[in-house]
């Protein structure tokens, strides 16, 4: 079976190459950053297995690595090399020469991801599945990317090493923003382990009038938004707000419909996801990828949709949830 770990090893290789390019250009801090980040991708399973067997030092070393990444990130800069007129002219010439053939490799990423998602479960060898069934979409995306790379090399007739160089250019341009989704998810894990959620739910529970069902509903809805904004993830907010307010007050005391409260409550949290820099992979990484000078430009473009939708969700719950 093509285990997901093999794909992580490929990511480690890409990060290590990026480090090598930086080392050759004597940008030592960036080289160190990419080498340290490559380690959890190359050795992740070994480290997790050791932690399960009660051996603590490998995961502690990984923890020190995370802190080192944070310190290197704080000194690093973001942004890509400025575009030159020469490069732009070259791209236009290549675009004219290659025409619509350029689209096929690019479109093969979504199309093959789709095909592998539906068909990949049936691929197998000696009765064993080819793709990891627990990580089917991610495996599909990774394999589609590799096939697309092959197709891109064929269409452009570029030397394979140039593909690494171009990948490195984009990885370097993302810089520390690459790390943000992972450290935020890590923070979610730390917050969960230290009981931050319970403390917030306790505080909210102390200030709302529990006999008034609309007050409870508003506390639940704004609690979902607030907690999602803090954690960057509605999945982290949901169990906390449900256990703190939704289940004991809205469902048990006021008879709210659990299916509706659960579904719309989660989507109310998603409105918070549109508003927060903590949801870095959706809000900050694209700003860097699209070379926007304002890191919060994507959030600004989302506020006007998030707030009316939040009002819609609250109205929907107030109207139907207690029936």
């Amino acid at each position: 079976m093509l285990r997901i770990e093999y794909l992580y090893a490929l990511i480690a290789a890409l990060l290590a190459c990026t480090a090598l390019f930086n080392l050759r250009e004597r940008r030592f801090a960036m080289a160190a950053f990419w080498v340290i980040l490559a380690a959890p991708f190359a050795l992740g399973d070994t480290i997790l297995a050791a932690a399960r067997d009660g051996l603590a030092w490998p995961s502690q070393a990984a923890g020190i690595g995370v802190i080192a990444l944070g310190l290197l990130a704080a000194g690093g800069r973001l942004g890509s090399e400025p575009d030159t007129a020469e490069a732009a002219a070259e791209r236009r010439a290549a675009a004219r020469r290659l025409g619509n053939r350029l689209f096929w490799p690019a479109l093969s990423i979504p199309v093959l991801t789709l095909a592998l998602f539906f068909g990949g479960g049936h691929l197998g060898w000696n009765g064993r599945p080819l793709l990891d069934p627990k990580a089917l979409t991610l495996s599909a995306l990774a394999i589609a990317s590799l096939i697309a790379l092959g197709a891109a090399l064929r269409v452009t007739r570029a030397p394979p090493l140039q593909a690494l160089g171009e990948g490195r250019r984009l990885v370097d341009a993302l810089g520390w923003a690459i790390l943000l989704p992972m450290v935020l998810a890590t923070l979610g894990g730390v917050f969960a382990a230290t009981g931050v959620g319970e403390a917030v739910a306790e505080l909210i529970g102390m200030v709302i009038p529990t006999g008034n069902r609309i007050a409870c509903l508003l506390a639940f809805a704004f609690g979902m938004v607030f907690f999602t904004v803090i954690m960057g993830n509605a999945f982290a907010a949901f169990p906390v707000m449900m256990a703190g307010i939704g289940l004991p007050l809205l469902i048990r005391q006021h008879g709210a419909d659990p299916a509706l409260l659960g579904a719309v409550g989660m989507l109310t949290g998603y409105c918070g996801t549109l508003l927060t820099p903590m949801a870095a992979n959706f809000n900050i990484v694209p700003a860097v990828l699209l070379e926007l000078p304002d890191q919060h430009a994507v959030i600004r473009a989302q506020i006007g949709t998030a707030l009316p939708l939040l009002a819609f969700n609250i109205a929907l719950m107030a109207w139907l949830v207690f029936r």
Partner: protein
Amino acid sequence: MIPSTAVNYWPLLGVAIVVAGFALRRNPVLVVIVAGLVSGLAAGFGPGELLALLGTAFIENRALLMFLLTLPAVGLLERYGLRERARDWIAGFRRMNLARFQIAYLAVRQLTSMAGLTHVAGHAQTVRPLAAPMSEAAAERELGPLSPAERDRVRATTAATDNIGLFFGEDVFVAIGAVLLIQGFFARNGIVLEPLTIALWALPTALAAFAIHALRLWLFRRALLRSRSTQAAADAAD
């Protein structure tokens, strides 16, 4: 709810650090790591325990960087003019404009997410190489060359459209994280629900999200056109 004395409020310091760090525009990565460390120490974790928690939580979230594997192909195609070609292609449609293109992208993104295909599109794999340059070209059909500020707003709106399509489509799909998380939470608390009933209640919000965002995309195009025409009038008056 009766406040219990067992709850330790000190880990909330981590939340305060996150808020303060973002407000002061410190490097977000460092802010988040410091917040995690403070929260852990306040909860009474030992240094060794805390480092191990940090390390394992980081490794368990590796899947978030799978999109890096798309970058060599995307980068190579860009160097050979993919974005320029995407622009020219969209510019060839006579009835295409910014709002039509972006609303169509929103619909496709939302429908594919509803089918569980959340990784089919995304900021690295489709927005940067295809959707953003196509949006710019669709806007330039009506406006001519965009100013840097206009171009950045068009790009940011395209990224926002991708997010909104993804978020408010995926909850309608029964076999994906959100629905199963909701069902699992209730099951642990003695309430048995069919995933389908949860997914169906996500439909009204999905429709509202499409309607609100499509309206905003339509207004965005109109605002761009209007600012150009007032500018032209001002230039003519000079």
